[in-house]
Each structure stands twice: as C-alpha cells, then as structure tokens.
C-alpha cells in the first residue's frame, strides 16, 4: 500500500523542517545549490562550504527515521525542502558526487534517543 503510494507519486517532497537561523545567512539548501554549481568547485573555500553543508545536513533529525529508505527507493523525483529553501534532486545528486569522498557520521550523541523519540 505505502509502496504503491510512493511509487505512483509524481514527486516526493522531503520536508526537513524549519530553519530558524539560516545556514551561512542564505539557508542550507541555497548554500548547497550555490556551492555545487560554483565553477570553482575544487577551490578550498568551496570544498569547505560543501563539507560544512554535508555536516549540517547530516545533523538533521529527518535521517533518524526508520522508514526513510522505502520512500527513497520507491519515490519518484525527490525534492528537499528546508524552511523556505528547496533543492531539486538533480542538484542534490551533483552535490552528493562533489562530496562523495567525505564521510561524516552524524556527530550527534542524541541520535539514538532522537530516533526513539522522534520516530
């Protein structure tokens, strides 16, 4: 049933919540877009920005959900939304490949507790 619903969806929106203090002033998803599309992707500044974005994104409680996987595997075109920012899947894929050498575990000791409490 749930599989059908996600499979038949035109789009899957991943709602990451609100962003009370916009990341690097412009908001996390906008920062990701700019850093990813920056022609100087390999510059040190940009690498730092990408890494910080990755860390910030990995900290989001959304990823502690047990049921994320099904929605990702089955979902149609994915769009991330955080506060008033949004990011389409193709840009996110580029961001992901820019940063795929970086491996950051959610450095949050509360992750387990959050997983129980939040979902």
């Amino acid at each position, binding site marked *: *049933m*749930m*599989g*059908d*619903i*996600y*499979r*038949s*969806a*035109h*789009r*899957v*929106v*991943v*709602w*990451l*919540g*609100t962003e009370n203090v916009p990341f690097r002033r412009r908001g996390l998803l906008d920062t990701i877009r700019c850093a990813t599309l920056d022609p100087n992707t390999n510059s040190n500044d940009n690498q730092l920005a990408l890494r910080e974005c990755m860390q910030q*994104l*990995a900290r*989001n*409680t*959304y*990823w*502690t*959900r*047990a*049921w*994320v*996987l*099904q*929605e*990702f*595997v*089955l*979902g*149609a075109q*994915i769009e991330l*939304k955080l*506060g*008033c920012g949004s990011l389409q*899947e193709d840009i996110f*894929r580029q961001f*992901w490949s820019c940063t*795929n050498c970086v*491996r950051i*575990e*959610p450095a949050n000791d509360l992750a387990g507790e959050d997983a*129980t*409490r*939040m*979902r």
Partner: protein
Amino acid sequence: MSFHDAWEYLDHRPRFPATPHAIALANMGERSSALSEFSVSTQIDRNDSSISPNPSITSRQVQGVYDDVPLRYGPVRNIRLLKVAPETVSGLIYCDISTISIHGHQAYTAVSYVWGDDSEDRTILVGGRPFVVRLNLWHFLAQVHRTRQDTFFWIDTICIQQANTRTKSPGRNDGRHLQISS
C-alpha cells in the same frame, strides 16, 4: 538508517528496489499497511461511528473527517489526497480532502517528514472539520500555504486514518511501531 545510507541508495537507485534488504522492507511495509487499512474498514462497517475504545476529542474529529471521504475497497485502489487552500478560515489552515484512484492520472506529491513529538500541536481544518497535527507538519502546511502551491499532497498522518490503525493493529500498539509501519 542514516543520512548516508539513504543517499547511497538514492545514488544507485533503480526504478524499483534492487537490494534484498530494500525489497524486504518494502514488502513488510505494504503488508502491514494493507492489514491496518483493512482493519479500519471492517471496524467502520461494523460499528458506524462512536466506536473508539478510547474516545477523545481528537479521535472523534478524525473519525468525522474520514466519514466524509471514505475509501472504497475493491479492484480499484483509492487514496485520499489533500490540497491546501489559498485562504485561511478563522485564521486556520484549510485543506480540502478528496479521494482518487491511485492508478489514475492525477499527479500528486507524497510528503516524507519526521512526525516529531506530540508536545506541540496545531489545529487545522480538513474538509471543514478541525484536525490536530504535530508542529513539524504544521510548519510544512504553513509553508505550502505561504507559497500558494496548488498541488495535491499525500501526507500519511492526514490521508490514513491513524487513530484507528493504532487501536486495531494487533501487536503494533505502541506509537513507534505504528509510525514505522505507516
């Protein structure tokens, strides 16, 4: 499931689940959800309204919303979809709710989000009836409302009759399991 797991799957995502783990998870979800929905329908058929074993304002309101948009069970699979109205009503976010065939041509957007804890709730109107949602979902609906998105959404806690799946799913009584199975 972590951030990296999720995106690694996305990175290598075929059209359908490819790994045994993913297939097992997906099948588990389909079975348990189908069971829950079936339980809901039998409950409604037998008992009409006022059947909540643990009556509360919330579950009565929820019951009313779903009475207006029943899901028919048969060869054609229906789901409920909602749309956020551009206007508020009495200052509350107003959602229209309707049923469509899942195999029809109506485009819709499925929403994936964290339920969050129930310490902070907000009331919205669904089909004209008060409906209580948790804060994180309310923020999403408020964002949709602000940006005037004319989109059909499928949102689990509103489009599935959660209050009754909780009470009617054997062995799945605690909130955590309910949430995972839905």
